[in-house]
């Protein structure tokens, strides 16, 4: 069961929300609440992996041109390699399912306890919002229901620095809903994340999502 708890204390200096901390049950767990933090980590992982792969092929290129012993019976290494790939391929999904909160929010979104809900329509390359600004309280679980009357669009929420917080596709003739927990105050921009022809180029509404509330002196911990 997913719930939201508030932990008081002087943790507001920790702007990064990728933390390892002691939870109430005194066990250590990974708490992630912001997609920006995950991708900050992923940049390091991706760059490291790229350099390792380049180095390995470089090393192999040198080695293959030099005489030396070979190991014709490397079947054990082969099957170990295949096992590692299977574990890695499946493991990444198991990891994100358990550690990236919005995966569970998404898969169980019909059962989520929703604090705020917004109905948004899209047609003729325009967003039709229920109000000029979408005011959201910090810590609220919000559901966005977005429908399209004509084309396939996208619905994405972007931070002030231009980075993306989340998105979904908006397919005509279907319900397109997404839930998200806003844990930081700020002003956010809505942009269509799917190409809908050259006329869809201006499908942006800047600074229309306002997340505010009590002074942010607490850390949102998402417990599973």
């Amino acid at each position, binding site marked *: 069961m997913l719930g939201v708890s508030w932990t008081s204390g002087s943790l507001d200096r920790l702007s990064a929300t990728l933390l390892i901390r002691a939870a109430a049950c005194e066990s250590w767990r990974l708490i992630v609440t912001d*997609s920006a933090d995950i*991708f900050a980590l*992923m940049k390091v992982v*991706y*760059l490291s992996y*790229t350099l390792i*792969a*380049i180095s*390995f*092929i470089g090393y192999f*290129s040198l*080695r*293959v041109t*030099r005489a*030396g012993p*070979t190991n*014709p019976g*490397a*079947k054990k290494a*082969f099957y170990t*390699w*295949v096992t590692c*790939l*299977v574990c*890695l*391929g*499946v493991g*990444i*999904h198991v990891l*994100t*399912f358990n550690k990236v909160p*919005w*995966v569970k929010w*998404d*898969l169980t979104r019909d059962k989520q306890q929703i604090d705020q809900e917004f109905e948004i329509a899209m047609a003729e390359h325009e967003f039709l919002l229920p109000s000029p600004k979408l005011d959201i309280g910090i810590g609220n679980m919000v559901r966005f229901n977005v429908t399209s009357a*004509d*084309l*396939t669009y*996208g619905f*994405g929420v972007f931070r002030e620095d*231009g*980075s*993306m*917080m989340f*998105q*979904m*596709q908006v*397919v005509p*003739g*279907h319900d*397109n809903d*997404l839930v998200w927990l806003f844990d930081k105050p700020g002003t956010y921009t809505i942009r269509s*994340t*799917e*190409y*809908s*022809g*050259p*006329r869809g*180029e201006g499908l942006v509404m800047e600074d229309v999502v306002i997340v505010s509330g009590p002074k942010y002196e607490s850390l949102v911990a998402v417990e599973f």
Partner: protein
Amino acid sequence: MLDASRLTPLQRVALRFAVISLLFYGLCIMEGMIMRGHQIDFDLMEADHYFALMGAHPMVGIFGSSFMLVFGAFYFLVPTLMKKSLYSQKLAEINWMTMAAGVLTVWLAGFLFRYGALYTNYWPLPVTEFKPIALLVFATGNIMIMTGVVIFCYNIFATVFHRRDTEEPVGPLLMSAVGIDGFVNIYRRWRGKKVEEPLMPLPLVAIFRGTIDTLLDAVVLGGISIVFLIHAVYIFTGEPLPTDWFDALVYKNIYWWGLDLIADGLVLIYVAGTWYLLAGLISGRKLYMENVARAALLVELVVSWNVWAHHLLADQAQWNWMKILSGEMVTAFELVTSGIAIFVTLKTLHDARPLKMTPQLKFLLGGILGFSLGVPAGVIQADLGMNRILHNTQWVIGAHAHMQLLVGLGMTLYAALYALFPMLTNDTQLKSKFLTSFHFWAHLIGGIGMSVCMGFAGMDGMLRRTIYGAEHPFELEMIGAAFFGSLMVVAYLAMMYNIINSIGIRGLVGIFINLPSDQGQEGDEVVATA
């Protein structure tokens, strides 16, 4: 210099495919660089022009360049490796002309009529947002391309099974072609029985196997184009057909099922086949774990038909079980099948050391590096958590697609090109080793650098089909991508100069046209004979 009059019909048709492919590649990278410029300075062109360019770019790159080079190489390799004649030389000639004309028609739909529904063509965008003439020309061009693809598949299958030159029964040949004998041999070895030599060489199994997906992809994309054509005709009559008869999500599933077969049918399987071929040629050895590699190709048949849902992870109306099963879990096995191909190829090379670092070996290792970087990037974006941000961003098209296409597929195809060049040109040698080496390094650094820059922009959420205004937050990454992209342009020019300088303008023209015999050359021959 190449004496085109001495080319066999098989060599000639393979070279025709190759030349057209390289010309289309030049057009493709030029388009890419124009778009790169526009990403930095938004004033280069109007939005409809930009998106028409973006729509034509992958069509030219995939069908005009990659497919053409692959088809040319396989038209030469399949009969040569099987020691059989090509089923129909005439069909092969019709094939390159149909494909080239189709790609040019699609390109003109964008250039003249601003067709810009991009390669995804999400329903009903192509029908409602563009002029009927643009839709008509695009659909016609796409149908021509897919007809060419079907001709290729038919000709290859017919070459494998025709019995003009051999008496091999069709049943065992078919079992061998799809890789079943790989499983049988693994079982026999496990039971301690004698392992039988497979009927078909492993690279041919990969070609056959990939061609099944290529055919299915052509049926889906060709079928969709017929729908476009019918709509265009009705719009012309003044009574446009309604668009709600086709559910947008069902369309997306069907379209992506077909489109994804390009990635799995052509890119992964054909590339594995080319690696196996090159590893055998370079090492002069039998492939390591050959039966497992054969069996893996059959497994890939199941995998490639069931992975399309990773393109719909951001579609909330898509069933969750389909996202998890097809989009995440089955897709993860792409990592396994490509990992097996990498291991088998590297181990085969390693067992034959010391090897000389020839251009084909260099490019082969570059291609393996490209897939080592591009495939994991694809598995990462095919994750429900990561896809919530990465979907439709520069990550998808940069760190994954361009890394695989330009570095992985591109360098593998260049390896095949450098390996086959003497065979196709009667031992004509490339004049400059320096230019070959320069081509390698500039393409490798340029391809990886550009893809990584795009990947970094994608991780921050830079969309891939969006024009950003001046001084956008991703400008630094786009300047980096443009710099590395320009390296690939220089690499291409170096390669083209080297090839044309080696075969000569006369040799190049002679590939397409029967030129009158050169008096001087005849005189030289007479002197040499005397």
